[in-house]
């Protein structure tokens, strides 16, 4: 099993969700986060007082999928989230030791 974490532009969330649904991925967790990579922030001015805003709003998607599906999910996600501009975000893939469904104690991939 693999855990896929993707940090994307907030306005791309709907497209990404639709694309993942299209390949049969139903479960995911969404977090509203702030951060920056190489993308620079922007300047705000309030009555002459300048502020540099470098932590920008992003959306983080977390999901766990079977190892075989991992590459396909990553490809789909990346192409749906891509604009080609700086600030599109990153995807990280981790190994997962165990998954448990709380309702009935299913284990492993059947819990996904």
């Amino acid at each position, binding site marked *: 099993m693999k855990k896929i974490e993707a940090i994307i532009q907030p306005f791309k969330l709907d497209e990404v969700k639709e694309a993942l649904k299209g390949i049969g991925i139903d479960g995911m967790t969404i977090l509203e986060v702030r951060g920056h990579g190489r993308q620079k922030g922007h300047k705000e001015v*309030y*009555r*002459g*007082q300048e502020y540099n805003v470098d932590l920008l709003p992003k959306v983080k998607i977390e999901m766990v999928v079977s190892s075989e599906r991992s590459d396909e999910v990553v490809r789909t996600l990346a192409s749906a989230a891509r604009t080609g501009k700086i600030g599109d975000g990153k995807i990280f893939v981790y190994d997962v030791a165990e998954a448990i469904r709380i309702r009935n104690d299913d284990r492993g991939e059947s819990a996904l």
Partner: protein
Amino acid sequence: MTVKTLFALLLPASSAALFAQTTPDLQSRLTAVEAAAKSAQSAGDNAWMLVSAALVLMMTGPGLALFYGGLVRRKNVLGTMMHSFILMAVVTVLWALVGYSLAFGGSGHVIGNFQFAFLNGVGSAPNTDYAPTIPQTTFMVYQLMFAIITPALISGAFAERMKFSAMLLFTVLWTLVVYFPMAHMVWGKGGLLNAFGGGEIPCFDFAGGTVVHITSGVSALVCAIYLGKRLGYPHAPMKPHNLVISFIGACLLWVGWFGFNAGSALAASGLASSAFAATHFGAAAATLAWLAAEWIHSGKPSVLGGISGCVAGLVAITPASGFVKPLPAMAIGAAAGIVCYLMVTRIKPMFGYDDALDAFGVHGMGGTLGAILTGVFATSAINDGLKDAAGKVQPLGLVDGNARQVLNQIIGAGISWVLAVVGTLVILKVVDMVVGLRVSREEEVQGLDTSMHNEEGYIFES
């Protein structure tokens, strides 16, 4: 309607004999018609003045409360709104006890007397010294709304760091020591600066440039310097937490200001219309001027710039509103937009004081500029209220050829500055000794909402 035209209307085309016969009856009918005309004028004036009073109260709550509330950080939104709202209650009580009487009782040079203390003798009969066509109660509540907003304006300077108890004590003392005397000097019968009430130094202040904006703005500067900077200023981010509510507040101020300025005619008269127009044109020009200055200077026109500009223009046009034509009103507004913009964005940072919401930059500067420019643009073509002993209308400002008036305005503004600085300093010392002015470091970091009031402005989880 003159008595002659009434005669013409009432008198049928009849013989002189018939006229002689019906005279006693006609006389009583005439008296009745005159009384009806008087009561109709009173009804019209009173309706407008009651609406104006409500409009001026709307400027404090919600207007100023929203405007200031949006400009502070999220943790201080309720504390800041409370600074405006609580005065709607505190000053009202003070007004009933002694305030109205100290401002408008008697005919002293500097302050009123206790003639109307506890609102004694204030009823539906007009006070002919001030507003002969409306009940004195209307005049009294209308003036009360000015006394409420003035100390509320100061709260922009000490926002985010003053104890609630200190703020209450400060504003009660300030209203007594600074506002009531200033209101009496400028508007009260026999007041030192009252041009229309026999003042030695005749000053023109239609709706409160010296009384409201200079006193509050200058006192704000003293408060900002005396209290010191907010923790972390100017390095820590102190962005306005909600410009949307500030925007709503500023728009309510613009609308409410029609009651403030046009209402100061104290009647539903042509002068009220003139003041209404001057107010609106001044605000519009100031909005554009501030935005233009900002666009050129910093690259982008901001919403905060636009609403700050409109308030600066409304402040500056306040003393002039009942004396100037629409085009000079726009000139005054435009000047205020640029001067206040430079004050807030360039000059304040040079000095380093923390006038958190720019109460001095907008009200102190805009008020002073407006007071002086009133002396330039005031004209008897708009306001023919100033007459000599023979009843001849007197020239008003520089445009009427009365250059001396500019000096009078400067003296009037100067007296307002001195009273504000000295009064505020003394009161701050006293309040500091009695209850202490500033919240503790911990309380300031925590924010006034929880540390002073035990609540939060925004709870999205519940």
